[in-house]
């Protein structure tokens, strides 16, 4: 497998954790992995972008126009990082509105045969009482769409292993809810400060 992924969003959305899930699994499946992440000043509320290359690669950076898969946890960042996708690439965006793309961008997506999906991961995670598990809800949703070269079972198993114990269950619930594509869940009583890391 040679696969190039971009995960984008803003600081605090668990992008590095999401990257870790994919890299851990790929490594276990016997692939080489190399990637790159954002640190320092850029993490203070700025855009965060994580590159992950699975297979035979030398450099940690994905070049624009060559990524197979884009997972974006923020709509604006999705626009900003869309250029990473190759022709025919696949993209998943965390967005409350299903059809949010600007018409001009839609033209670009169609012309370049990019399959773009959106899922209200923030809303779903908030309803589960775990706003910081939105990353896992989006990943779950992505796995329900054909074309992502990982299985639901393998990713789920990896989440179990890499999640800190106290976040394991909530991470799995968010992941499963995303996988089932459930967009509305009856609000849970109590806290809205749960979290996943």
């Amino acid at each position, binding site marked *: 497998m040679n696969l190039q992924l971009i995960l984008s969003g803003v600081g605090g959305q668990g992008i590095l954790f999401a990257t870790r899930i994919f890299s851990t699994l790929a490594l276990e499946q016997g692939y080489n992995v190399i990637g790159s992440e954002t*640190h320092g000043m850029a993490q*203070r509320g700025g855009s965060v972008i994580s590159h992950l290359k699975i297979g035979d690669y030398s450099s940690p*950076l994905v070049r624009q126009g060559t990524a197979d898969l884009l997972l974006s946890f923020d709509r604006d960042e999705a626009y900003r990082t869309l250029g990473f996708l190759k022709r025919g690439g696949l993209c998943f965006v965390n967005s409350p509105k299903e059809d949010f793309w600007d018409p001009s961008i839609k033209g670009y997506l169609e012309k370049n045969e990019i399959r773009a999906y959106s899922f209200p991961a923030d809303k779903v995670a908030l309803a589960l009482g775990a*706003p910081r598990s939105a990353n896992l809800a989006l990943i779950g949703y992505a796995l329900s769409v054909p074309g992502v070269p990982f299985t639901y079972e393998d990713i789920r198993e990896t989440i179990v292993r890499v999640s800190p114990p106290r976040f394991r269950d909530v991470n799995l619930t968010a992941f499963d809810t995303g996988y089932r594509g459930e967009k509305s869940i009856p609000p849970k009583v109590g806290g809205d400060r749960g979290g996943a890391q």
Partner: protein
Amino acid sequence: MTEVRQEVLLGNEAVARGLVEAGCHVVASYPGTPSSEILPGVVRFKKELDLNTHVEWSINEKVAYEVALAASYTSKRAAVIMKQVGLNVAADPLMSSAYTGVKGGFVVISCDDPGPHSSQTEQDTRFFAMFAKVPALDPSSPREARDMVKAAFELSEKYYIPVILRPAIRICHARQNIAFRPVPELERAATFEKDPDRWAATPRFRYVLHKELNEKLKAIEADFEQSELNVRHEGWDNRLGFIAGGASYSILLDTLREMGLEGQFPILKISTPHPLPQQLVADFIAGCERVLVLEEPDAVIELQIWDKSKVLGRLTGTVPAAGELGPEVTYRILVGLVEELGLPVGPYLDLEELDKLVADLELPVRRSRLCAGCPHRAAFYALRRTLGSKAIYPSDIGCYTLGLNLRAVDTCLDMGGAVTIASGLYHAYHQDGKDVVVAATIGDSTFLHAGIPPLASAVHNQAHFILAILDNSITAMTGMQPTADSGLLADGRMGNRVAIKDLVQACGVKFIEEMDPYRVKDFEALVKRARDYIRQEDGGVAVIISKRPCPLYDPTPLRENPVRVTVTEECDDCKYCLTAFECPALVLDEDLGRVVIDRRICADCGVCIQVCHKGFIVEEPLQ
């Protein structure tokens, strides 16, 4: 058969692994992006393997350098770690130790930041290697960075010379799977052999040492001619060749493969940029019609090449002279050269079209800002509100440089620069008979690093200004490294505490007050008192220690005493809080036409209640 343990390591952790696998005895560092995770990596392996390694966060890079160097004097293996601008601070011992040489292996790890992403310059550490006349190694991947640590120690011990390892940010912050190698026990009892002609050399002997250094460099260059660190890939099309090192080399390989040009052009990978193996390079160039040099951030290899008649690079304008040499830039350069050769370039997406489309969307600019609940924000707010736009606000290096957004930072030069610039500004105005209010801000770690001599000097020279030391108990920007004020050591044990307040007092400052910046009104009153003090003829430097832990580092105070705020429906969208306080948890809800609290990031500090003078931000009534 024992299973080889493999792990996905951050480049910096890979360097740390390299240090323990090389049996390094002493590791000293001062944090700075992109180098900060190396020492914690060493701490991790030290704990896992129960090693006796001495690790320390020194107070600055010069101190770290010299502590490690002294261990090398005793025949131990030692390393010092810093970011590239940290080497400016350690330049003095670097230059001198190149002459004196070392005993045990001594490796200087200085991490470059092309871009720059998180630094004040894009300076190239390899120039420092040339300047100091020491060898430099340049890894092109985390795995190679791990391996090069060992090579660096061996080189250092062969020639008794400091060796620079220069991983750039794309190596430091890359992640790659790496198979662990065993960690040896390297027995080296501390033995300092007195040799005053070397370790305490006077200028007459320095001349001798300089000649010796020149001989060492010549011999090292000869070694590099044969070194396995430099690799030549053959190609069947010699109309173009590449010389590349570091991340630029890896990016070149991937880009050529993506373009379907793998194996076509010869490539010379240079991992030893200084001293440059001149014969190896000349032979390579002789076999090509043209050669493109890819390296960053500057033209260190290119400048050293004797005959540049066939060479393309930064000096010919082929490669941009500033900014990162990322895959996109590399691709554009390659497309240009390949098209000149009449070769087809595969179809590519029209990214310029997309860039334009996205630009037309006018997405809100996402600038970096202080976190929700940040005590610095409260301090900046009070300073700015009390002293206004006429005051001048020198600041320093750290999270709090983002006080820019609150218009309470006017200068940011270097570590410790807040105090010296404040002092210089005061004197420049004072000699004209005009006294402006100068209010400098500096973080706790930065003050300890480079603020103490400037403060002593300012007091001595009768400067008058306010210095707010923003003490959040930790080096936050670089990932929560403990400071000397906390007393905590690099490996989590408790050391001796060096109190900032005591240091300020010892510098001769007469006005010192500590205050929690969350108490905005009290803080404002304190700033007024400080202003009155600096305006007095017999006043001087007024130091305010703004004391409150970084909530990311220590969330307990806010967890125990949360102030849950809400914005009332009366909010009239005046935007004062958004501009003057700029907390990311205060957001304008366009539909409601008023400010709301973003519960996902609100830290429950409650400071914004004191910011809305109309009283529309209130503590949420208990339900």
